[in-house]
């Protein structure tokens, strides 16, 4: 057992890093879907915008990363605000129109970004003092990923606590559960919706800034992270932070440990896992009981 654990430790730690990165993406997607019934297919674009920000601004120094984070934050706020405003007129028109609109926006944004950054995948270096490997239980492991796990882990805990334990979080959860009832109690739910959209977008772009050294920006990355986060929220259950965390960590392991264990079935694992969960439990692992 210890031998097995030792052999796959690197994969498992990779899976945690990957899973936490997916969580920063999926949580916004999940909450926006849960609250507004909006399937935001431009969510992967926000990650890509954040990752390109990191590529353009980070120069290997801490200051560069800080500037990239701040700019990423602003990009997320602007992007989230724009997307929320774009889908606002579509209230009550069903998922298909929203999907077509956000996919259209994602296609346009992807072309615009490709015009600026070219068609290559752009490897992004972490700050110089983190760009080395350390020894973990006799395994060499990139330091940046460990720091990323710590930072993203803290972020995940903060999001979870804010969502589950604060009064603002209660308001958000109530809006997910029954928007009309919250409105009837005198709350302007549009502000809540706008806030959650912007918050989710900021998480995605900040995830992009921090995740650029792990999943480097390039054309097609927006689709890839979008599909991964869709799988995560479907597995975890829509509209739930806990579900997004559970799904993200599970998919992180499936994508790293699972691939290491069964290389022959590697390409089938991601969607096989999603199919299995959906068929056994169509409402997701941790849903709020909504259809």
């Amino acid at each position, binding site marked *: 057992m210890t031998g097995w654990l030792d052999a796959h430790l690197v994969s498992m730690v990779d899976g945690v890093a990957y899973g936490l990165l997916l969580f920063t993406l999926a949580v916004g997607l999940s909450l926006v879907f849960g609250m507004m019934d909006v399937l935001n297919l431009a969510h992967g674009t926000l990650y890509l915008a954040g990752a390109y920000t990191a590529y353009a601004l980070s120069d290997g120094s801490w200051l560069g990363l800080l500037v990239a984070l701040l700019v990423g934050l602003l990009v997320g706020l602007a992007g989230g605000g724009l997307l929320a405003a774009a889908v606002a007129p579509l209230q009550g028109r069903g998922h298909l*129109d929203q999907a*077509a609109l956000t996919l*259209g926006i994602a296609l346009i944004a992807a*072309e615009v970004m490709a015009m600026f950054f070219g068609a290559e995948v752009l490897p992004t270096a972490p700050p110089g003092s983190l760009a080395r490997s350390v020894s973990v239980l006799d395994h060499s492991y990139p330091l940046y990923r460990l720091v990323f796990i710590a930072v993203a882990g803290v972020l995940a805990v903060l999001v979870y606590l804010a969502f589950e334990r604060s009064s603002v979080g209660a308001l958000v959860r109530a809006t997910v559960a029954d928007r009309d009832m919250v409105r009837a109690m005198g709350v302007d739910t549009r502000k809540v919706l706008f806030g959650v959209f912007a918050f989710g977008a900021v998480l995605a772009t900040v995830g992009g800034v921090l995740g650029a050294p792990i999943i480097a920006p390039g054309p097609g990355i927006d689709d890839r992270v979008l599909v991964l986060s869709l799988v995560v929220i479907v597995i975890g259950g829509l509209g739930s932070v806990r579900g997004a965390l559970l799904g993200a960590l599970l998919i992180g392991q499936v994508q790293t440990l699972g691939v290491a264990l069964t290389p022959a079935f590697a390409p089938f694992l991601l969607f*096989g896992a*999603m199919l299995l969960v959906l*068929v056994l439990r*169509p*409402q997701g692992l941790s849903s709020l009981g909504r259809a």
Partner: protein
Amino acid sequence: MSTDAGLRSRGRRLPLRTAVLVAVVTVLLLLVPWVFGAFTVMTFTRALVFAVLAMSVNLLTGVAGMPTLGQAAYFGVGAYTGALVGIHWSELGVVQLALATLAGVVAAVLTGPLAIRGRGVAFLMITLAIGEIGYTAAGRLDSVTGGTDGMSGIPPVVVTPGGSGLVNEGLIYYYVLVVAAVSYAAVAVLLRSPFGLTLRGLRDNESRLRSVGYRTDSYALAAYVYAGGLAALAGSLWASSQRFVAPGDLGFEISALALLAVIVGGVGSMWGACLGALLVVFTRDYLGQQLSGHAPLLLGILFVLTVYLLPQGVAGGRAQWRRLFPKDHGGDPGTVTPT
């Protein structure tokens, strides 16, 4: 939804106008190889194949209310079956179409029970998973599909026993046009049958349908199987017209474009789905090439504009067109041509 109800009532009120419209469209489609060059004719051929796939997607998405992202998997089953039959057994088009459709039906019967466990977004995601698994399998089953290199060497399709193969792009276009027209008629007949009405009931209020005694899951599965067979038929047309099949032909992009074609055309309307397919294929292959490969940008603009300006799609009734062009009171959506 009011879309197809409006269309049907208009169809009853103005049968002459509908007949004239059908005749005009038929003549226009028949004229295509005489008017346009080889590249445009081949684009029309691809658009017609895509229109059959879009009808299959629309049968599930628009009629039965089950949005799908997995129809490319059955399209691929049909394409590979048609190609294999053509290479190893018979170059006769009818045989290829029949066996490809049968293969699609079998694939849908086997996978449908999984898919119909969910509705709405869950159904969408299950079909997405089926589509992605199909795409991955096509790339890895080297011995059957030729793997990621694709399958080439498909012989030209033969229409009558003993005839010669169709290599001229105009003749291939006519072959695809005839099969597409027959599929359109088959779907139209289905939609006018009690079964078609029940599928609409499934979309509008499944629990009420169940409470009056319908086995809604059986209807959902039947729709899924019918759509799977139709998608496979389109796949066989694809193999015959392109004479090359690769895993990319059953990728996510194809499923997504088919779904978007349905949305652009007008969810629930079959001729809307065909028009949407024409719009999407011409935007991607024709305009995209004119503008040096910025096809995704053009598609994105098309989707955004459609959603804002034509909320019910191109086929969505005259009111929204009138709002767009206030002076043009005679604006009939049927006269809008895709090019």
